[in-house]
């Protein structure tokens, strides 16, 4: 039998081949396995959107345009209380800086307690690690709410929230950096008869310091962003000003503040990148 053309195949021939090689044609089970995931995903997305009342988006469109217009049309710029705004921005920066600094100093100690190659007592190390998990597991925003309740509205609550959540995260990152160091250098210091603190100071710190500094700089950057959000729950800073003016429907002022915050974040981004590069450069002189 030669190779016939496709059009020459008739139904009986197709049926004959199908009877001989059923696997090559894909049964009903195969079809279901192939299409079911798509069908399930589609049903899930549509169902969820329906549950979340997607049609409200269409109703809102008029208000959205209103809002957008108010963002870009700036009115009565003379009485925007700029002093208040820039004080808020400065406060946010101060909160982020102080919180990160305290978190860094705390993590400098706690990080060593959580590092396997420094803390030789497994029980204590595990207790420290689980404690850090708790600090990290609760979101910064939740810590903000907790501290607003504890110390009242204002920047102190924000500083504490940043400190606590950074302590958890930085300690974990630091302890991992410590676990990755070169053992030989530590052994060299140990062989001189140095005490435990001196071993950490001379064997570990020089190796991990650049990593520590670069991680803390990144956190300063990230905390400046999150300090804005913390203000919205009442923990001081620019976020408080944003939420006040938002509630008063002063959208043009909100837009102005947000632009200022963006400039601040770009500035910190740039500065911390420069500091990081400078540090790395020093290391390879």
């Amino acid at each position, binding site marked *: 039998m030669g190779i016939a053309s496709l059009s020459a195949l008739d139904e009986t021939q197709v049926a004959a081949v199908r009877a001989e090689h059923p696997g090559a044609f894909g049964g009903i089970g195969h079809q279901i396995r192939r299409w079911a995931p798509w069908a399930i995903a589609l049903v899930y997305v549509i169902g969820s959107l329906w549950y979340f009342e997607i049609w409200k988006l269409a109703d809102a469109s008029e208000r959205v345009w209103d809002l957008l217009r108010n963002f870009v049309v700036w009115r009565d710029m003379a009485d925007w209380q700029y002093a208040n705004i820039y004080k808020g921005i400065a406060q946010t920066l101060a909160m982020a800086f102080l919180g990160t600094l305290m978190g860094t100093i705390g993590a400098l100690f706690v990080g060593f307690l959580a590092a396997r190659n420094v803390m030789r007592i497994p029980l204590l190390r595990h207790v420290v690690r689980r404690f850090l998990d708790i600090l990290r597991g609760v979101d910064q925003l939740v810590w903000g709410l907790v501290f607003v309740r504890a110390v009242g509205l204002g920047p102190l609550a924000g500083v504490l929230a940043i400190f606590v959540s950074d302590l958890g995260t930085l300690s974990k990152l630091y302890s991992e950096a410590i676990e990755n160091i070169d053992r*030989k250098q530590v052994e*060299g210091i140990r*062989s001189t008869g140095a005490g435990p*603190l001196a071993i950490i100071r001379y064997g570990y710190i020089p190796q991990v310091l650049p990593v520590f500094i670069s991680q803390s700089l990144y956190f300063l950057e990230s905390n400046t962003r999150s300090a804005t959000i913390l203000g919205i729950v009442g923990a001081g800073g620019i976020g408080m000003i944003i939420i006040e003016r938002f509630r008063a429907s002063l959208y043009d002022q909100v837009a102005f503040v947000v632009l200022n915050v963006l400039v601040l974040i770009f500035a910190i981004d740039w500065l911390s990148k420069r500091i990081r590069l400078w540090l790395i450069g020093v290391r390879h002189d």
Partner: protein
Amino acid sequence: MLKLEKLTRKFGENIAVGNATIEIPDGQMVGIIGRSGAGKSTLLRLLNRLIDPSEGQILFGDTDIAQLSGKELRAWRSDCAMIFQQFNLVGRLDVITNVLTGRLHTIPTWRSMAQVFTPRERAFAIQALDRLGMAHTALQKAETLSGGQQQRVAIARALAQEPKILLADEPIASLDPMNAKIVMDALRDINKQDGITVICNLHTLDTARQYCDRIIGMQDGRIVFDGTPDLLTTAMAREIYGAEAHEAFNEAATSTSIPAAQPVRELA
């Protein structure tokens, strides 16, 4: 006098050093030879107590080093300086600070934490570096130096400890012949001039023969030879090195004999 009494170290089932009994008088230069994994490094680390012994005694005078802990242990480590195959300097610290870490045992905690060293300590460190011809690198980061230079800085750090014993764990195994010779000459000089006992793990036989007063051969954690270099016959050496004999007798890369000046002794 350093005296090992049935010193044993096990790692699980594996005996790294078994029943080592040796006496080493003050001021001797001892070479420990053997193939890789024979227990040379473990023996040296036991002496400095970077590893704890499983059984047996290490007597220095009347003190059992194997029993020391805490402050006394650190005092012993300070007396018993060590240099390593990979130098073990702190790469990001400058050379003089690396040498000054040899003083950490003696200085109070607050000073070591704040990195405050007295002018006297700094001068001492520079002198130690100068003796090794490395004073000009004092302010460089240790990681910027070549291997041979790093090993000389490591020896300066050991000298800064004012040790009674100097342990050297394969000090020249990572060095080229020229630097290997400089390092071995320095160790020999320290041994002769300062009367410091030097115990040195060596992979190559000709280096041990050339520099040491006494050779100890190890095989599978046991001491199988102990005597002056001339007592070490070729047959004995072959026995110690086993399958690695060819490498140990001829390996120019880690040998201190520079072929042009001094042909490798033909033992093979």
